[in-house]
């Protein structure tokens, strides 16, 4: 028996001392014990409230446990303790009903004041509409003509373990939200499909994104920096893979950034019109289509086009992908109501939609030979 225990012990020691992932372990701080203080006045207030609660709870717990262990030690039969026979005491019972009540009031007052400050999203300097959808965030600046999707940037190979995991594994996105420091930024939060929750711990902001309803929250960030968070409401298969990254810039830099974005967005629109007149070759279409497919479609329909039986339909060999081309384009543009299939008209450009339709009609043995162009999408979108 002893020898077995010793062996198990050695094995466990070996297991515990072995690093989980050799390359990156050293750089990442492990064993964070407490909540972040964050970078807003509100988040600092939340931290202080948390610590106040924590200390009160530790003191109460310690009191109860000390009383328990004193009686367990001194009032044990093996020490010859004879049982007393008291079984009620009105004064004591009133005391331990009333005193906790007073402690609760001591907690409730600062909590109430803090909550009222947190919920006051009035008179913002900047307003951003945050829309969750399976499994990405969409940011729209209400005061400027800038909007874009923000998707996780961690590669699938890192998740499956084929590549080493980077420092910000699962907490990195292609296009972060950018906000100015020292300004009151209001977030209007909603969803296109299921319920998500937009959470940035450093701002102490966590607000559910409910489809069909708009919630609000706000933050006034004190220090420039990069702040990371995650979706905090189970939203389906890739709930663990929709991070949030917010970059806070000095107001001057922010203004520069937003006007740049506006210019880029205008340019992209002009470019889209220009592309309408152009035809892509099959090779071009397949190459762009594959990229777009893997970024937007593969999460559900799988990289091999086979879907998840009973959950997400297969595209490989499907009737729509093989025969009904108008329906295929319609599904991409408008989505399918009552299912997880989103409308991609506002998410992708027309040439991207055209390329992905071409890709889906020619990949994985769907050899239809169909080649769809941006102008086909344009006419479908305009109801022609």
């Amino acid at each position: 028996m002893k020898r077995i225990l010793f062996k198990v012990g050695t094995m466990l020691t070996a297991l515990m001392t072995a690093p989980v992932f050799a390359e990156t372990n050293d750089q990442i701080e492990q064993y964070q014990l407490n909540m972040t203080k964050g970078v807003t006045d509100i988040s600092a207030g939340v931290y202080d409230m948390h610590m106040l609660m924590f200390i009160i709870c530790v003191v109460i717990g310690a009191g109860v446990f000390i009383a328990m262990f004193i009686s367990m030690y001194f009032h044990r039969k093996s020490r010859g303790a004879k049982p007393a026979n008291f079984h009620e005491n009105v004064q004591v019972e009133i005391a331990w009903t009333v005193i906790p009540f007073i402690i609760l009031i001591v907690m409730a007052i600062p909590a109430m004041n803090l909550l009222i400050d947190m919920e006051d999203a009035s008179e913002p300097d900047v307003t951003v509409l945050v829309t969750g959808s399976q499994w990405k965030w969409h940011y729209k600046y209400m005061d400027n003509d800038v909007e874009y999707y923000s998707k996780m940037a961690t590669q699938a190979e890192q998740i499956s373990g084929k590549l080493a995991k980077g420092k910000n594994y699962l907490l990195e996105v292609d296009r972060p939200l950018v906000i100015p420091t020292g300004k009151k930024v209001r977030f209007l939060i909603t969803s296109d499909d299921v319920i998500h929750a937009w959470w940035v711990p450093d701002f102490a902001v966590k607000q559910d994104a409910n489809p069909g309803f708009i919630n609000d929250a706000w933050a006034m960030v004190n220090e420039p920096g990069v702040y990371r968070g995650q979706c905090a409401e189970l939203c389906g298969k890739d709930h663990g893979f929709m991070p949030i990254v917010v970059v806070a810039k000095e107001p001057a830099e922010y203004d520069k950034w937003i006007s740049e974005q506006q210019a880029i967005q205008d340019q992209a629109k002009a470019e889209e019109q220009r592309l309408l007149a152009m035809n892509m070759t099959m090779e071009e279409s397949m190459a762009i289509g594959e990229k777009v497919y893997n970024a937007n479609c593969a999460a559900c329909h799988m990289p091999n086009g086979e879907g998840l039986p009973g959950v997400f339909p297969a595209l490989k060999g499907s009737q729509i992908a093989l025969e009904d081309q108008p329906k295929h384009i319609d599904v991409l543009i408008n989505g399918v109501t009552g299912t997880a299939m989103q409308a991609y008209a506002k998410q992708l450009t027309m040439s991207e939609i055209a390329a992905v339709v071409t890709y889906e009609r020619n990949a994985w043995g769907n050899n239809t030979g169909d080649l769809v162009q941006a102008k086909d999408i344009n006419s479908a979108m305009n109801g022609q």
Partner: protein
Amino acid sequence: MTTATENTHTDDHHDDGHHEHHIPPGIKRWLYTTNHKDIGTLYLWFAFIMFLIGGAMAMVIRAELFQPGLQIVDPNFFNQMTTVHGLIMVFGAVMPAFTGLANWLVPMMIGAPDMALPRMNNWSFWILPFAFLILLSSLFMEGGGPAFGWTFYAPLSTTYSNDGTALFVFAVHIMGASSIMGAINVIVTIFNMRAPGMTWMKMPLFVWTWLITAFLLIAVMPVLAGAVTMVLTDKFFGTSFFDAAGGGDPVMFQHIFWFFGHPEVYIMILPAFGIISQIIPTFARKPLFGYASMVYATASIALLSFIVWAHHMFTTGMPVAAELFFMFATMLISVPTGVKVFNWVATMWRGSMTFEVPMLFAIAFIVLFTIGGLSGLMLAIVPVDFQYHDTYFVVAHFHYVLVTGAIFSIMAAVYYWLPKWTGKMFHIGLAKWHFWCSLVSVNVLFFPMHFVGLAGMPRRIPDYALQFADFNKWISIGGFAFGLSQLIFLALLIKACKKQGEPVSAQVWEGAEGLEWEIPSPAPYHSFETPPVVK
């Protein structure tokens, strides 16, 4: 009345001297049984098997979370595991175990010969295995089982779920029907079948807490049935209860669910309070401190449980006034809960304590449940709840109250009454191994979850950022150890059912008091056919 009297007559005639002939051999005994002790045993074994199955799913979850990256299961299956683990532990393990204990103990504690409605008792048990067969079978069908969390928030459970949702809905309907029948039986038994002299304020606390629990069950299980039915019609029959596009509201689902769900939390802890209130006086050899205040505290917790539901929903975007109301109401619950803990400590104070296995579990319960209760108080504070909500801090909190709370109390109860049931003392060495292994591993498992939660790890994710890696490794090791520790319990129970061990006296434990300790050990198949008189 006439019918009842006639029935009694025929039964009497039948029963005279033929007791043993009425127990059919083999499986038929268990299928046809209307005996409260047999049905109690069935419930308890069923709960234990479900505990092992639900535990195996927790092992899958912890194996996947042992290190960052996706190694063992895909995210869709991971979600099915978290969902079905929760459903099985709540509806398959904790609730049936308490019903099993009520079946065994309530009639023996109030001096009744059986439950008031024995045939319904049989029925309420035997529909349960079918409910869980339906639920578990969905895991093997195309599309898999439910993957939307045990809280099945719409529209993830409606528009965006797979067709297996129908199986989930029907399984929950059956579980609800079973619970309601069990609750009716407990209420009718306690109201009508107490022995002469067993007044309300003489009832053992386990009976009191179960009576109040039964009322909670009757009040809220129909609400759950309503919620799953609306999910069913939203998904399959085109209604829009929870779909804003059709005039509904997804947040309304959460209000309905938690109007069931919060009292449900107390359904799973009030009987535990009863058990601990039976065990502590026995091994402190001193009467329970503040019996009356215990009863009133239980009743106030039950009443308050109906007005705190939205504290599960602080981030859904409620008005400030509603958030404040639910915060204050929730904080209030800590007062009667505190009274209970203080009463238990006062019962130990100046007692003459010994530390047999049931007492070890009871003391562990008080300490660890108090930790879970205090983290619950922290969670009640709305502004900080915005940081805690849907993180591992919450996972730590509710596992402290459910595993080291409800499940430890069930284990304490089994060790306390097992010798009465079998007539033999259980294997004390194994029991102590079971206790100490469980106690250490359960804390390695759940305590670090507080830390990763505060550091920002959301719950219900199959993969996590690298800064959570080392704690998760410890949590998984604690999880595997806790899972393995339960196999010691299994071995002990098998030995006990084979009637191995030293014979015990009727009283079993030196300080035990109450009607159940006055009948011989093992408790005869029919007890209190003539009601005892309680002075």
